[in-house]
């Protein structure tokens, strides 16, 4: 009953296969984080490049760089500590502009409390809340470094009009006020809540968020406006991604150019008696085609709550909380 040659061979083969498997999947801890003190900056920095294979990408399942070399921000592609150190050095202020008109005032509390907690936490954020109901705002607790500016606006009968006039309002207020108060500005829909940190990884010259509805869709089936009579029309065979109008931004200069261009298109369409398929979002997508974003946010940054979450979406940082049927 001893070990025969066959047994020995079986053991060798198994060892060989195990060895081969082991060799191709070297064990390395997923979050290989080290705290290091860099005297140069006097701040604790963590760099978590994979220790055994520094060149191996953390995310192999998704595109992390566009063909025009804009990074696409996904969980595990960035180290927020390094980015925070860079951001802090430059003494920047970021603003958020949001609209709560008519029934949408119900979303203010949820949005503001979650944004206060999770949006650029630890850095100064100016929240610019445009509302037709400024008296209705209950006392909101703001983090010490944040500021809330409540700005009254008139309401419109159609929500599409509100949606489209946002572009106009934002560009006018950038010119008259925001450019003196913030370096970067982000437009965010009010009917969302933040559940995870959204930090300085979003800060860049021109930033668009990939829509969670459309991120796997083929060009032809994307929701671009296709009627050539509209200023927002994207010709057949063109288009990179479908961006959501719920979350976009960048430097004040770039956001100014974007909102002006979009509003011009909206006005022109109105004169020609046409309304783009998805309103301001169509115009935004047209703008982003020929003025490509310098950074893209993955659908983690604006997830549609109704959608079932695939494995590629490891984190839902901001989600819609729509109760009525907006889209």
């Amino acid at each position, binding site marked *: 009953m001893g070990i025969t040659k066959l047994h020995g061979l079986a053991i060798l083969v198994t060892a060989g296969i195990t060895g081969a498997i082991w060799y191709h999947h070297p064990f390395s801890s997923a979050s290989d984080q080290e705290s290091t003190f860099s005297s140069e900056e006097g701040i604790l920095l963590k760099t978590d490049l994979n220790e055994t294979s520094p060149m191996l990408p953390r995310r*192999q399942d998704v595109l992390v760089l566009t063909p025009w070399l804009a990074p696409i921000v996904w969980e595990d*592609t960035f180290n927020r500590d390094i980015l925070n150190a860079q951001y802090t050095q430059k003494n920047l202020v970021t603003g958020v502009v949001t609209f709560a008109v008519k029934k949408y005032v119900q979303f203010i509390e949820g949005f503001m409390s979650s944004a206060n907690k999770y949006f650029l936490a630890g850095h100064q954020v100016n929240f610019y809340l445009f509302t037709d109901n400024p008296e209705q705002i209950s006392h909101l607790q703001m983090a010490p470094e944040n500021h809330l500016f409540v700005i009254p606006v008139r309401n419109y009968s159609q929500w599409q009009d509100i949606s489209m006039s946002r572009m106009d309002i934002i560009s006018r207020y950038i010119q008259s006020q925001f450019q003196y108060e913030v370096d970067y500005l982000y437009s965010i829909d009010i009917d969302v809540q933040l559940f995870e940190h959204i930090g300085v990884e979003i800060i860049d010259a021109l930033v668009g968020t990939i829509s969670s509805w459309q991120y796997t869709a083929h060009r032809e089936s994307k929701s671009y406006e296709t009627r050539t009579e509209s200023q927002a029309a994207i010709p057949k065979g063109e288009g990179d991604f479908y961006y959501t109008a719920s979350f976009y931004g960048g430097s004040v200069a770039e956001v100014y150019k974007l909102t002006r261009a979009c509003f011009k298109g909206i006005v022109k369409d109105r004169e020609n008696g046409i309304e783009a398929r998805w309103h301001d979002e169509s115009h935004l997508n047209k703008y982003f085609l020929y003025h490509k974003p310098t950074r893209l946010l993955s659908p983690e940054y604006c997830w549609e709550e109704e959608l079932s979450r695939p494995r590629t979406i490891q984190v839902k940082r901001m989600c819609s909380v729509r109760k009525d049927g907006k889209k």
Partner: protein
Amino acid sequence: GNGKVHYLPYYLPCPEIFSMKLQYTEEKLIQLFPQLFYQQPRVLAPKRQDVLTVTPWLAPIIWEGTFNSEILDSAYRPLNLTIGVTAFAIGKYTRFLGRFLESAEKHFMKGYQVNYYIFTDNPETIPDVQLQPGRRFVIVPIKKYPSWQEISVRRMEAINKHIAEVSHREVDYLFCLDIDMVFCNAWGPETLGDIVAAIHPSYFNVPRSQFPYERRSSSAASIPDGEGDFYYGGAVFGGRVKKVYEFTKTCHMTILTDKANGIMAARQEESHLNRHFLSHKPSKVLSPEYLWDDSVPKPPEIRLIRFSIV
């Protein structure tokens, strides 16, 4: 370095560099992309799954497959940029100039205006070179130095001074390249950025503990154990001319500090460059495709070699 290095009095910092204020031309933000037809980028289809293409601070790492040259050219060409190149042809290294320039004419920034600034202590030996239209060749005479260590110590200073005196008015971007190299494949606008560094071919896939950083704490270039992102090669660096001016100045200062303390960093200016890029991270990183050494066995991750040691 080993052995004694003797320093002559002229190594004291020249005040003119530090008090210069340069007028820079308006920085152009690259964004306007004309109509172009190309394959749709797909969110679930990464082009390179075998290599890191974005650093933890969200700077792109440029590998073949990550970018579309057509898209980039369509945005950059209309900007009428001038790209500068510095290369040092010192002593016997003038013999590399011919091949360097010939290959650059074939592969480097085709379709763009290029100024080659050749720093040499031997201007008489520089041959007359015929370049394509829109491309210029300028000889920058420098004094003869007694040793190669001295040359290495002076390179940052020479580049910095030249930017201040000449090239800041002439170029938008500047690349500082070693001359004993040739271009073998396209080097284009995918390399343009604020601060650009290249990963050293011998150290691109090893843990940071194996990087040949300067480790002696007495050196201004020292990087302690446990720190470091990549090991960048000294043969390729660049960026917007204003940024190159700033970091060559900083590197020159740390080099001078070491000199005053009687220490020379393990890899000379490359050590100082690595120290600098640790605290001031590059905005764009070039893969070893852009800085290759044929004596290193070529792994499958390197699909294409663009610039290599002769």
